[in-house]
């Protein structure tokens, strides 16, 4: 009995510790400018106001950054699906020379941190005139080893007999892919889509390097820049954080089953 109380008290305590920073952010974002800069720090706005949001979207071009981030995240998601799904399926279910060796090579490449490629990638983008363009932001994440791996692990469970039966009936490989494989892969497609969306939305270093113009920037880069100019404006910055976090948190809450399930498929079963 005492143990049950202790377990649940600790669960609640850790829950509070996890949520306090986010709740504080939301509360401060509704405070009047300057209100948060007091000792002791106020926990609630004296008079809740949306003035900070008005300033973000009015004078600071937040709508543009939001639109940039959304556009890039949606494109990154579609491209990730386009490149990774066919490859993941082929590594699981189609036969071609050197398949297993190639797959092992891809997995081994996971030890290379992405930042190693970043400097030559920048020079390559410069050669291809992709610096300061959305295409430049998108190219490093077209195909990813993680995405291919995720789809492959799931596609292994598609019964080979089903594919063979379709081949006997004379269906071509692409026809089989579209009419049999894709429907069977639906859950993992959703998982891959969320991962791609969240990764693109949160990405910081590469967009910071590749985008120069203020009006092309993504939310995280714009927020980091704003925070250097507006160090004292706690309330304004917290409103910016809310705008940046709400879309991904909502997406996560709506689709968390696929997110957490995919994380397990990608890490433990491997």
């Amino acid at each position, binding site marked *: 009995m005492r143990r049950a109380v202790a*377990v*649940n008290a*600790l*669960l609640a305590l*850790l*829950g509070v510790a*996890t949520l306090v*920073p*986010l709740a*504080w952010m939301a509360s401060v974002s509704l405070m009047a400018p300057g209100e*948060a*800069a007091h*000792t*002791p*720090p106020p926990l609630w706005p004296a008079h809740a106001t949306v003035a900070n949001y008005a300033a973000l979207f009015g004078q600071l071009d937040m709508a543009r950054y939001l639109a940039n981030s959304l556009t890039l995240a949606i494109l990154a998601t579609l491209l990730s699906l*386009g490149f990774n799904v*066919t*490859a993941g399926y*082929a590594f699981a279910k189609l036969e*071609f*020379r050197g398949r297993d060796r*190639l797959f092992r090579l891809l997995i081994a490449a996971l*030890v*290379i*941190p992405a*930042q*190693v*490629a*970043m*400097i*030559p990638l920048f*020079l*390559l983008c410069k050669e291809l005139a992709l610096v300061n363009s959305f295409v430049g932001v998108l190219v490093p994440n*077209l*195909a990813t*080893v993680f995405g291919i791996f995720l789809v492959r692990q799931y596609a292994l469970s598609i019964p080979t007999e089903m594919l063979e039966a379709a081949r006997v009936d004379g269906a*071509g*490989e692409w026809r089989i*892919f579209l009419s049999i494989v894709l429907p069977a892969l639906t859950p993992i497609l959703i998982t891959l889509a969320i991962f791609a969306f969240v990764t693109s*939305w*949160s990405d*910081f*270093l590469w967009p910071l*390097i590749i985008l120069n113009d203020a009006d092309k920037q993504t*939310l*995280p880069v714009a927020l*980091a820049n704003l*925070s250097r100019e507006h160090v004292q404006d*706690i309330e304004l910055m*917290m409103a*910016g954080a809310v705008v*940046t*976090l709400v879309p991904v*948190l909502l*997406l*996560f*809450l709506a689709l*968390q089953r696929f997110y957490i399930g995919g994380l*397990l498929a990608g890490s*433990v079963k491997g």
Partner: protein
Amino acid sequence: MTREAAAWTFVAPALAALGLFFALPVAAALVLSFTDFDIYALADLGNLRFVGLDNYLTLLRTPLFWKALGNTTEFVVLGVPLSIALSLGAALLVNARAARFRAFFRTVYFAPVVTTLVAVALIWRYLFHAQYGLIDWGLGLLGIAPIDWLGDPDWAMPAIVLFAVWKNFGYNMIILLAGLQTIPDELYEAARIDGAGALAQLRHVTLPALAPVLLVVSILTMAGYFQLFAEPYVMTQGGPVQSTTSILYLMVDQGFKFWNLGQASAIAFVLFAILFVLTLAQFALVRRWSRA
């Protein structure tokens, strides 16, 4: 079209993208790290010279490189065990038989993982504020004198560690939770019959069963933590007195602020070499463990 040819049409786009935008740049980075590629070479490749190992030797003689390596190591050494301990604690709590609202708490603990790093780093920058910060106010209630977390060279990195642990523990918790659920109840039953209490069960049943998962988790976490960058970029800009300048921070500064792209490539490869050796070492450990 033969089946072999059809199969290649499925993999070719992904392989081409990975080759052009990953494998080629990685190979090029190695070459670059042996050149003096700088702003002059950026303007005209005629100014590019091969300098052999000069970039690496320069690094070894640069105090800031050693400082950055030390800072990053501090972050890893403090952050990885703390992260995994909290992940394990949270997983044990959520998995406990007495636990209520499990799904709710699992979701809550995981929420920071999906948050955007720059945005939450901003939140924590203010939480750590020496005057108006919630954390010092909380410590004050406990009678602890305020700490200038991000302004004191001794506290800035520990502060970033605390933030990173908050941000990341939910990820490993999910993986450990899955590991916990594969441990058969009979093992606990047998331990209880032998008179093992909760702690003895944790030590003799749970931890040994989780060992392989814990090792995988520690490899992944360590690799991730060595790539520290955005946290100091947003919270401290590498300071105070360069106490939070990480290896990657140094690489970005060298590469994209001073345009010493050759030097920056060498830094990237040093990071890669460290990760490679540590990963191999941990794999060797896993192998020895599973043989024993």
